[in-house]
């Protein structure tokens, strides 16, 4: 068939298809409803025309025009839309805890990397009041001591920060803590080194602070303050670490896949962990800013802290099990 006859016969289909694509490519809110009807069928026919035009060596301009239509159609046909809210809820209720349980090994490994240094140096700092200076500078130790001095009106905050409102601390915790979580994950791509370093380092600092303050006798300011948000915050950092370790695993030991393919697969499996941990850190920031800072009897703080630890463990180990045989 001659090119001109070919064009005349199919031009109206191409125009319709192009108009439909124009409509579908507009932002969702300004799109008229029900624009997708007939898209797959038109797409297949245009694919066919494109192949014919190439095979018959029609003019490059026509081939190019059809190629562009095919490319746009391909993008529209294979895009994913809608149901954001529902997907988020399903993720919190099922997706996140299930994804974490599938990667339990990485979680336990990350937990060990964090907890063992913390316990060791914590005990050390309780026995030796100078050991804390081996992980922190003098100024930092002083600042940290002032934060939890029994006469500090606002435990958990430095004296300059004390007057800032709970709200501004909420913003600070989000900016700082979730950022740390995301970076812990990202640095895993450097063969896991960055993640391991972050986990061990955070374990050392947190363990040293806890041990040192307990040794100073600041029990009644430090432990009630951290009890509320510790469950969410520490667990979330360890989960981010587990996700980072998965990236490291893909780089170091990709198994039967090419390294790039392994990285892609592991990153896809690790993403739910990071996002879930981000949500946990968001909640932790809220608790740390508004609940932990409240002056209440220690017994109440401890009770709530224990309750939250129990809920976090139950949620991560049980949520999303059952029904369809999911584990």
């Amino acid at each position, binding site marked *: 068939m001659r090119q001109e006859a070919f064009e005349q016969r199919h031009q109206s289909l191409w125009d319709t298809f192009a108009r439909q694509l124009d409509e579908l490519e507009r*932002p969702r809110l300004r799109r008229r409803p029900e624009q997708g009807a007939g898209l797959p069928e038109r797409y297949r026919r245009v694919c066919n025309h494109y192949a014919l035009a190439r095979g018959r*060596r029609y003019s490059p301009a026509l081939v190019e025009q059809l190629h562009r239509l095919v*490319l746009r159609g391909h993008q529209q046909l294979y895009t994913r839309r809608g149901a954001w809210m529902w997907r988020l809820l399903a993720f919190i209720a099922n997706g996140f805890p299930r994804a974490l349980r599938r990667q339990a090994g990485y979680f336990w490994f990350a937990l060990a990397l964090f907890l063992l240094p913390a316990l060791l140096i914590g005990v050390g700092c309780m026995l030796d009041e100078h050991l804390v200076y081996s992980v922190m500078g003098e100024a930092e130790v002083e600042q940290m001591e002032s934060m939890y001095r029994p006469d500090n009106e606002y435990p958990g905050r430095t004296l300059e920060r004390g007057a*800032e*409102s709970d709200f501004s601390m909420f913003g600070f915790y989000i900016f700082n803590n979730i950022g740390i979580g995301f970076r812990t994950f990202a640095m895993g791509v450097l063969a896991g080194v960055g993640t391991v370093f972050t986990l061990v380092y955070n374990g050392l600092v947190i363990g040293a602070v806890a041990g040192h303050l307990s040794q100073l006798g600041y029990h009644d300011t430090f432990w009630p303050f951290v009890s509320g948000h510790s469950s969410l915050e520490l667990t979330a950092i360890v989960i981010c670490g587990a996700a980072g370790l998965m990236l490291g695993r893909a780089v170091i030991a990709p198994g039967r896949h090419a390294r790039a393919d392994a990285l892609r697969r592991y990153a896809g499996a690790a*993403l739910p962990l990071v996002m879930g941990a981000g949500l946990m850190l968001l909640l932790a920031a809220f608790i740390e800013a508004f609940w932990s800072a409240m002056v209440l009897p220690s017994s109440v703080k401890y009770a709530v802290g224990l309750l939250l630890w129990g809920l976090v463990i139950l949620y991560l180990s049980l949520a999303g099990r059952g029904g369809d045989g999911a584990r």
Partner: protein
Amino acid sequence: MSTPPALADTIRTYETPEGVRLRLRLAGPVVRACAWAIDLVIRLLLYALVVGIFAFFGGVGTALMLISFFLLEWFYPVVFEISGGATPGKRAMGLVVIHDNGTPIALPSSLIRNLLRGADFLPLLYAAGLLSMLVSRDFQRLGDLAAGTLVVYREREPERAELPRAVSVRPPVALSVGEQRELIEFAERSARLSPGRQVELAELLRGITGKQGDAAVCELHSYAQWLTRGR
């Protein structure tokens, strides 16, 4: 259809389930750095705007400011990538982010590639990312490798050139399909060639047309006319 030999250029092809081969033109480090610089300027303006607005609202203002900083740092590219495939900087440079199978970028891949900026940026100014782009086959930084994404040039709307008006003339010799295509392409490109160059090219075929100067150009246009329209 046989697979064309792999060429040392920046065009990658991907075959869709429909059996159609898509061509993707990869974007290199320099154009991506330009796009990043444009985005940086936009983000700095947004930071300034946020500070300007929220500085007057006390504690709540500080909270909103810090939350905005957090969102701008991590999710500025994600929002634009999932809504239009490209940040304003990339859009300005004519780039778009897609999956390596040609489909538009989805939320999970966009999150992965932008979270991994934390590693790509190390030790400073995307040194790790640049190294990864230079080493990998498809100019992918670490985030692109992990997310399975490519940064490619946006296809520009091709302009259909009208064939120059000419009397339809049957070519005097039998032409192969490739030769026919060359003739049609010549006719389509004529509008963008200077008259002198048209003549120069057309006279290469003097052995077939037997004409010179503008007459040779007209003759080739006539052949193209015949090849596309017949008669």
